């Protein structure tokens, strides 16, 4: 189902397609008309996307068809092999992890995983990890340190799962531990917010030396819906909450929370996932090249400095 603000674009596209089919079938030359419509389409798309509200970005970040972690490991990396399990309780399908090559070098990859169908989403718990998922992530961080491989984390979660079983098995504890473990990595750590960056469940694998974000992704301490439910006492005020939270890629760049915004192709990553992922690959390669010359001690100090400076306070 297309998003509301995409409708005019999609309709125009459909009209162009029809026209082209008609021209082809009838052997008529409609290239001028089609050309004009295509210009109009391009303008419409540019204008729509130049003026997206924050809430519309949130919808884009959730749009079906956006690249997921498994899409990225398929296209951006070579030789991916998924590794399973937390060695303690279970394998959590809401987090995918493994080894791969990125432009020749071995890397460790870990990321949230949403499903593409309802069935898969139920299996993946809509990308909301249990403690086991974060424990698997920590095992991958150990692996990265053990072999000196960079860690690349892909963030796309509404949040850590807020359920009884997750609480029983220490959801808060494991998120804290994962933040700490990632902060202690002696190898380059790159985090990318692919789609949704929901709170502590996102940050748990977000303690990178560099934090990148896709242009239409969001990252916040709370989802707009939950924020609205608490502060406005009305979840329907999500649009307003999204504005207030300043949760878009450009907001976060301004706030210093992310280091780089990865541009998405016109129409958003869900309309052209390959294009989005290729842009991501370029950005990753650049950032990684900057980090690789650093010693483990420099990487630790760099990461400390990065997060130590976060926040806005006044000293009197």
């Amino acid at each position: 189902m297309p998003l509301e603000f995409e409708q005019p674009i999609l309709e125009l596209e459909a009209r162009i397609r029809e026209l082209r089919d008609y021209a082809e079938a009838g052997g008529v030359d409609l290239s001028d008309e089609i050309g004009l419509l295509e210009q109009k389409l391009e303008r419409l798309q540019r204008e729509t996307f130049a003026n997206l509200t924050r809430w519309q970005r949130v919808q884009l970040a959730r749009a079906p068809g956006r690249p997921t972690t498994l899409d990225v490991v398929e296209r951006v990396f070579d030789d991916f092999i998924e590794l399973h399990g937390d060695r303690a309780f279970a394998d959590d399908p809401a987090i995918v992890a493994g080894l791969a090559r990125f432009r020749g070098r071995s890397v460790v990859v870990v990321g949230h995983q949403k499903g593409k169908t309802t069935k898969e989403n139920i299996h993946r718990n809509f990308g909301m990890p249990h403690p086991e998922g974060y424990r698997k992530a920590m095992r991958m961080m150990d692996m990265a340190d053990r072999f000196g491989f960079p860690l690349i984390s892909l963030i796309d979660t509404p949040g850590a799962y807020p359920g009884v079983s997750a609480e029983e098995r220490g959801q808060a504890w494991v998120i804290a531990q994962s933040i700490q473990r990632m902060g202690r990595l002696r190898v380059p750590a790159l985090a990318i917010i692919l789609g949704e960056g929901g709170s502590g469940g996102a940050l748990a694998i977000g303690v990178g030396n560099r934090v990148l974000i896709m242009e239409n992704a969001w990252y916040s301490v709370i989802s707009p819906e939950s924020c609205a439910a608490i502060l406005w006492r009305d979840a329907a005020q999500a649009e307003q909450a999204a504005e207030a939270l300043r949760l878009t890629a450009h907001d976060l760049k301004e706030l210093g929370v992310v280091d780089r915004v990865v541009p998405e192709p016109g129409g958003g990553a869900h309309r052209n996932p390959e294009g989005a992922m290729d842009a991501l690959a370029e950005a990753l390669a650049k950032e990684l090249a900057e980090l690789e010359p650093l010693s483990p001690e420099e990487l630790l100090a760099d990461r400390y400095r990065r997060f130590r400076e976060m926040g806005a306070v006044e000293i009197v």
Partner: protein
Amino acid sequence: MALDRLFRRRRTRGGGRDVPELWLKCPSCEAQIYKKDLEADLMVCPECGHHFRLGVEERVRQLADEGSFEPTTGAVRPTDPLRFTDTEPYTERLARYQQETGRPDAIYGGTCTVGGVPTLLLAMDYAFAGGSMGSVVGEEIARGAELAAEEGRALVIVAASGGARMQEAALSLMQMAKTTMALDRLWEKRLPYVSILTDPTTGGVTASFAALADVILAEPGALIGFAGPRVIKQTIRQDLPEGFQRSEFLLRHGMLDRVVERRELRATLAHVLRLLHPEGGASDAARV
């Protein structure tokens, strides 16, 4: 402080009477308790042992060795980086809490000794915006950890928080990483860090520095968790199990070292710090 607010609320409901309220009703057993008795019992219900929420200054008084406390917090003040407004501008909310508590934000603490051990003691103020963690709380905790490391002190943090401060959005979230990473300054110096979880400790505070202490103590009956009970109930659409997310439940599930009654808290804390801190001295037995 939580109690002051409770009083205010009750007075308002009662129609603005002028008579000072000398009696309090225990929210757990509903007994009417004489206020002075409650204070003499460290704000623990003499009938059922319910631990009332404690103000931060009272908390420091109860834990620090007498006369040893010197505040270090207060110089760090909140700003409004997002120009956040919900039903009320963030700046106005802040001003109100600042006036009510006399503090710039939801944390209070300083240097002291506990059982003779040099300590940096911080207490989160639930009365200030539900003890929520924004940039100031994060900064004070990071500074606290760094100062403790520099001066060879143990770090003790009394947590009481509804979680991250929404009005600072992603910047609040980043405080989870900042506080967590600052703890490593203590690791490098082999200085101990003890966390005391009180009612309530949830969200981003539990999921960062509060869960990472060498020794984690909790007051009885405190609500402790990641997600709040309401959110969980909405998610699972079932009633929550009895005692769920309370201290005793967490102890059983392996998340806490000990549940300690308030009257034992200072002694237990001193005991742990003396064992862990290099200046903890010889055996307690040997002292006697």
